[in-house]
Every structure is written in C-alpha cells, then in structure tokens.
C-alpha cells in the first residue's frame, strides 16, 4: 500500500468516525483528500477502500439519515468501532503477555501480536518481561490456518487425508465444527459429508491444500456440540485394563518397571514383573523395543504379538 493510499484510508476512517450522520459517497469525496476527479474512477477506488476497511475489522455501516434520502450513506459508529474499556492489574498483564507468546511461531502469532498492540493502545502495559513461570508453546501446522478460517466462518471444506495404514490419501468432505489440540497434536472435528457421521481428523495427516466448498455461514454446528469431548472420545484408548506377566532382566527395562504393579526375583539375573496394559498391539511394540531385556510370559496373545513383532524386525 502506498503512502498516499494509507493517508487516504486514514482520512476516510477519521472522517466517518467523526460524523454522527451517514455521509454519501459524494460528501466523502469532498471531505477526504486523495480521490480522483473522474466520478467513475472515484467510485471504483471508494469501493476498494470500503472493502479494505472491512477487512481490517472496521465496522463500516450503510444507511440513510431519513426515508427521503435516495443515496445510501456511510458512517463508522463509535460504539461499534471502539475497543471497550479494559484495565488489567499487573499480574493480569503479565499472563496476557505470556499468552501472546504461546503462538510465537504458529499461525495465530500475527493475530496475537495485533491484539496485544490494540490492548497496549488501550493503556494496558503488557511488557515482554521474561518471568520464571511455565512457558507453553503451540506448534504450527500447515492445515491449521485454512481450517481455523473455515471453523470461524462456518464454511465446509475438502482435503486429501491419509488415514493410518492407508496406502493412498482419500478426498474427504467435512463440515468443520472445531479445531482441538490434544497431547500437542492438532485435530479437526466435524460432520463428514461422505460418511454422514461425526469424524475427527488429525491435521498432520492432511496432504495438500484445504479448500473451501461453500460460502460463509453454510455450516451449522449442532446445538450442544462439545468439540473437545468429540476429539477426546475419538482419541481415548479403550479403558479395559489387562495385566501382563513379564520377565525383565536385572538393571534393564526401566521403561517397563516404572509402571509395574509388582516386581519379584525370578532366578539368576531376572525379575518377574506385573504391569497393566490395554492395547495388545501397542504394548507388544513397546515390549519388543526392549529387545532381549524383556520376555512376555502372559497373556498368550501378548506373547504371540511380541514374537510376530520381532520376526517382522528380522525380515
């Protein structure tokens, strides 16, 4: 944007903010310097300017001062423009600064910085003083930006998705309801148009671009939807707990011993360890990773799964 245009837009904002009444396009041209002489050129430029102001979130209202006005007029109501009064105590300002740093490299980093700027402009002193607290960070993800936009604007999307174990990605069509970060990973939950059911997708498994397939407002999030709960329910392991009986070499298998419910000596150099598990395949992979430090004794399906796993590693 040229300096000239910045000046013109700034003039436009001040002009419309200062006026209680709706101003017609011609009144605006008379008041704000920088518009061209030709009416057609002015109209085009004015249309673009209005668009730019709206993109910045400036509430540009259209209306007329009386029923007799034929030309529509414009104004920016102060009520709608201004950030309401906000006062923060020093400890509140400190957590706000901490919150703004959470996104440092991720998609909403710019938005967080923009918000901080406005709050500072409202008199809040949110200094970037490092403090001995906990610093959480959110990692970025390519699909986050478009999916957040889709959720925000309630637009349906389509994307290629590679489900676990699939050799080819599949094109999916989704009405997204929300984006959730769980255990540090991003997920999108919503209504899958092809499956006609609720589905959860992991953002890191989306390949290529996310495309909008409908206008803003065309997605309805069912009343009472809790996206956190949707993702949690999808992600949670079956809570059925079983007990594994394992032989673990002395001084090894610390990663298993940590979760042991009982440990007793079992001959020279070995311990017999009892530990809880729920998913056989996952636990078999885990046990296999300890190599010869661990032997799965019981149950039989776990023992078999470990053997299969180890044979696979030899292939």
């Amino acid at each position, binding site marked *: 944007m040229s300096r000239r245009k910045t000046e013109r837009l700034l003039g436009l904002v001040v002009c419309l903010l200062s006026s209680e009444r709706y101003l017609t396009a011609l009144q605006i041209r008379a008041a704000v310097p920088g518009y061209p002489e030709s009416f057609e050129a002015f109209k085009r430029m004015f249309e673009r300017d209005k668009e730019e102001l709206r993109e910045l979130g400036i509430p540009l209202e259209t209306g007329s001062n009386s029923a007799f006005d034929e030309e529509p007029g414009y104004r920016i109501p102060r009520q709608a423009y201004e950030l309401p009064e906000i006062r923060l105590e020093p400890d509140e300002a*400190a957590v706000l600064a901490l919150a703004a740093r959470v996104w440092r490299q991720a998609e909403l980093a710019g938005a967080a910085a923009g918000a901080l700027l406005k709050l500072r402009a409202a008199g809040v002193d949110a200094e970037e003083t490092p403090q001995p607290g906990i610093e959480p960070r959110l990692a970025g993800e390519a699909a986050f930006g478009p999916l957040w936009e889709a959720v925000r604007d309630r637009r349906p999307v389509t994307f290629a998705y590679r489900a676990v174990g699939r050799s080819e990605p599949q094109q999916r069509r989704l009405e997204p309801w929300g984006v959730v970060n769980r255990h540090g990973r991003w997920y999108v939950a919503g209504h899958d148009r092809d499956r006609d059911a609720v589905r959860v997708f992991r953002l890191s498994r989306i390949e290529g671009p996310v495309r909008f397939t409908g206008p803003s407002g065309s997605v309805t999030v069912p009343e009472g939807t809790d996206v956190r709960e949707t993702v949690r329910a999808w992600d949670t392991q079956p809570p059925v707990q079983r007990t594994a009986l394992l032989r673990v070499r002395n001084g090894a298998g610390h990663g298993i011993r940590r979760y042991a419910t009982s440990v007793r000596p079992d001959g020279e150099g070995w311990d017999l360890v009892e530990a809880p598990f729920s998913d056989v395949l996952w636990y078999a992979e885990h046990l296999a990773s300890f190599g010869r430090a661990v032997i799965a004794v019981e149950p039989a399906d776990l023992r078999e799964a470990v053997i299969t796993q180890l044979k*696979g590693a030899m292939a």
Partner: protein
Amino acid sequence: MTTPTPRSGSGGSGGSSPRASTATGSARLQRLLALVPYVVSRKAVGLAETAAAFGVSERELVDDLNLLWCVELRSPDPYCPIDLSYEGGEIVVSQAEQMDRPLRLAVDEASALLVALRMLAEIGAGGERSALSRTIAKLEAAAGEAGVPSAQVAVQVDKIAQQAQLTQLQDALARRRRVHLSYYVPGRDETTERDVDPMRLLVVEGRTYLEGWCRLAEGVRLFRLDRVLGLQVLDQPAEVPAEAEPKDVDQGLYRPAPEDLQVEIELAPLGRWVAEYYPCEDAADLGDGRLRVKLRTPDGRWVRRLALRLGENGRVVAPADLAAQVREDAAAALAQYA
C-alpha cells in the same frame, strides 16, 4: 515544538517513498490507528519506548507521526483532526478527534489470546490461576462478539501429572537452586543421575519440560517431566553459565547436529507415524503408501529400539551395520521364546 514535516494536502510528502519498511500497508494503517490511542492513554510517552512497543525503528515511528499529523479533512471547512508533537523525544497528542480509542479486537485477535489464556488456565500452574481467570473474563467482556468463535478452538493440555515435581521445580527456579535428577533415557533404556541448574519450564507439544544446564553433559538440555524418576532440590545455588543459551524450541524439539549419525528407514503405511513424530531431512514416496525417510540421531541405540518397535512396518536401510545390528537384536530376543 519539533515541527513535523510540512503538512501537504497533495498526499505524497517528505521524500520517504518508497518506504524501507517491509510491513504491508494494512499493517501500517493498523499501527497508525493504534498509535494515537497508545499515546493518549499514557498522556505522554517517549519515542524510543513507543517504537519498541510497536516493533518499529524510531525513524519509522517519526514517519508515522508525521503522517498522522498530516491528515486533513476538507469539508465542510478544511481542518486537521490530529495534532501532536514529539518535542524532546516525548510524544504528546493534543487533539485526536474521534481516534482516541483503539479499534475493537478482530475475531482472530480475540481468539489467539483467549485460546492461549484458557490453555494456560488448564495447565493450572502455581499462583497464576486467579490472574488467568480474571484476565479471561476481562478479555471476553472487551472482545464481545469477536470472542465467541474462540470456543471452537481448544487446546487440551493434560493435567501435569507430576504436580509435586512441578512445584519443586518452580521453587528451585524462584530460589535459583540446583536440582538433582534421576532421569530415564528411553533411547538407551537407562536411568541416569545428574545435577541440573534449572533455566525454565516449558510446555511443548503437550508435554512439560525442564530446561537447564546439565552438569553431566555440560550443556543445555531439556528434561521431560514424565521421565524424571526422582528429584531433589539441593542447597547449592544454581550456576547457569553465561554461555548457556535457551533452546529455540519453536524450531522443533529435536534438532539434529551435523555430526549426528544419518539413518535411512523404509516405512510401510503403518510406520508412517515416524515421519510425523521425528524431523526427517528427506522423505521419498515409494508408492503404495511406503516412505523412505532420512533421520539424524546422536545415538544408534535409539534407532535400534525404534526398529524393533516398528517390526515389519519399518526397515533400516542404511547404514548397513546398524541394519545388521537390528536383525541381531531381534534374533537374540526371539531366541528367548524358543
């Protein structure tokens, strides 16, 4: 007063175009709209301080101030809505017309802060709790409608299970004490004993870490709290060397060093998670959902354990001796089932 460059109704002024700044024009317009209320709310404020708050150079700031001062409206009568000065390096706005309040928060802006604040509240660490709920309430009130969509984004952080250790570490940080850790290293399936001078606590990718100067490794290390098996706060003061640089965790937690071992692994569709979890330097699609990735690691033992965990879903291709070792590991473990 320090007179801004002459007002010119003609638009382009001051010979400062094209601007050196990389900022886009709309970012500049946003900054200009925030600048006036920033000064007004503080009555008077220094040039240097303001430039720092807005992340611009003093020269850019002065250019902004001149531009604001130059705004002119011509109808019904010509007048200048903004009057300001920056005499002696101090900015004062004496007239601001209707621009003395900042623009409302946009949806993205409100969401970025609210989502982050709620996440901090969920981590629920220490004495920040009440400050967080107060801040969230105030921000929600100030954001109004713009804050509503933020409910559609949630960051769930597991309650840090190691609350007792967390409290101990926060105490050690506050009092600048050295700590002793019994720390489990899964790559080697070993428990190590080490003294660490704490630097900070981080939550990255859903997990909590202590960053500190490890006296055993003589370097900055990250310790995952769920792998800390034992923790003691020592009476000795922490001595973090001046050269200890916090890791730039935003570039990823595992950052391979050039001298690390390079490993090539072929992954079946069910092994592709490896490429999601670890930074791969190179990933080649082999068709049928198979992937060949290159990883770097300082420790071959970690790769051997990874290969056993992958089973038939992954195969170490290079280096050849490492691949042979994996087969030996698997054979030795398998022999125990005979």
